[in-house]
């Protein structure tokens, strides 16, 4: 068992073999798997990124596809064949309207504090709503905001991206338009309110959004 690994210290396996290896690993794993992890599992000298690209092309138009999820890669059935899979479908718990809206706000405004979510929705966010999203592993705690009280922030997870077939959070539907129209800005109410303090500036927010992606490496 050690041999292939030791041999490889001298020579990487041929490209065709590398592609087979990536194929086998992706097939065997339900969770998205990063290029770094692929490289770690493959013999020394292998370049998973190259093999992945060939593999992705090979599966184009097939019944399963190689998809990118955040920083990871996974194989998923083609969405147009979902109707064959009724047996596999398991009813996801119905999310409340509050939960769905909260999820969207986290996705588009991340990293976002609870106070900011409440400000956008105009109502309090119940503990249960946040818990449900945390439990689904669609949102998680991000960094604390460096403002008085150091409130925690929420960001979406790779699991969220995986579930909704998004490569990165930048691919959220309508994100660009929303940004362009200024609706993702944290605009403090006129007259200098307390909320000034716990809202990030636009720059910070944009940075964090982008960083959120690289965070997942």
């Amino acid at each position, binding site marked *: 068992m050690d041999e292939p690994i030791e041999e490889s210290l001298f020579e990487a396996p041929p490209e065709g073999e590398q592609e087979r290896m990536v194929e086998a690993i992706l*097939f*065997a*794993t*339900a*969770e998205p798997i990063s290029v770094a992890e692929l490289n770690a599992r493959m013999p020394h000298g292998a370049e998973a990124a190259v093999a992945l690209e060939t593999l992705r092309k090979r599966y184009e138009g097939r019944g399963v596809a190689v998809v990118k999820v955040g920083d990871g890669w*996974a*194989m*998923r*059935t*083609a*969405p147009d064949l*979902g109707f064959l*899979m009724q047996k*596999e*479908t*398991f009813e*996801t718990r119905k999310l409340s*309207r*509050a939960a*769905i*809206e909260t*999820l*969207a*706000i986290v*996705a*588009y405004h991340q990293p976002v504090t609870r106070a900011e979510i409440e400000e*956008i*929705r*105009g*109502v309090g966010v119940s503990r249960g709503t946040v818990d449900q999203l945390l439990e689904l592993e669609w949102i998680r705690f991000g960094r604390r905001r460096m403002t008085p009280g150091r409130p925690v922030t929420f960001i979406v997870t790779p699991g969220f991206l*995986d*579930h*909704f*077939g*998004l490569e990165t959070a930048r691919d*959220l*539907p*309508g994100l660009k338009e*929303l940004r362009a*129209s200024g*609706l993702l800005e944290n*605009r403090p*109410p*006129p*007259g200098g309110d307390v909320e000034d303090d716990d809202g990030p500036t636009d720059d910070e927010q944009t940075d964090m959004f982008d960083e959120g992606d690289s965070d997942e490496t």
Partner: protein
Amino acid sequence: MSEEQFELSPMPVEDRLAAEALIVDVDGFEGPLDLLLVLSRTQKVDLRKISVLQLAEQYLKFVDKVKKLRIELAADYLVMAAWLAFLKSRLLLPPDPSDEGPSGEELAAHLAFQLERLQAMRESAARIMARDQLGRDFFARGIPEDVTRVRRVTYTATLLDLMQAYARTRTKDEFRPYTMDRDRILTLEQALDRMRGLIGFAGDWTDLSSYLPEGWEVDPAMRRSATAATFAASLELAKSGAIELRQGEVFSPIEIRKKTHG
């Protein structure tokens, strides 16, 4: 009861029914902002062109109506009503130059922004939920294979470990009580004596902490004393040219080795 409202914005029958349903449904609203958003739809204009003044009036009428029907309104609805009444007066009265607060227009613009933002988030939420979903429209591997974890452990020991272990077994009987009887302070002289004997075997860089005498490593007070004395002794020995000292960076382990001559 709501003729005024009809004058303001003549409502078709279905809208009127909707407005009545609003009252019945008052608990179903997710707060005043949600209610405002629903009311704003009766204006049939782009949210960006909405008349906040008109909206404020709609809201205040709604609240009045609900009060007449003796339906208890939650406090935040009443707070919003008070605020909108204030906003309305600001919008209607000519601006007072001595007033420092934000203008009515600014406040109205912000409210419009809030409504537009909430609406945008609702639409975005709907668009997210309308996407193909894992486990519903596309699927992951049904039989994931387990990855077996192979743990390879390398054991290490130094020559000093070995010698100390041997010394421990050879001196077991007399050794333990010996340290116990001792005062809990290791003197510089004791440390120096000990180091002088040991240093002959320290050809390689060795962590200074491995020179602590047996039995002094666990108790914090004893360990402190032994560490201080051993460190002082190693400085002495370095000064006399018997050993070399090094430390990779601040707070990293101090290492010593025998100074080779020639």
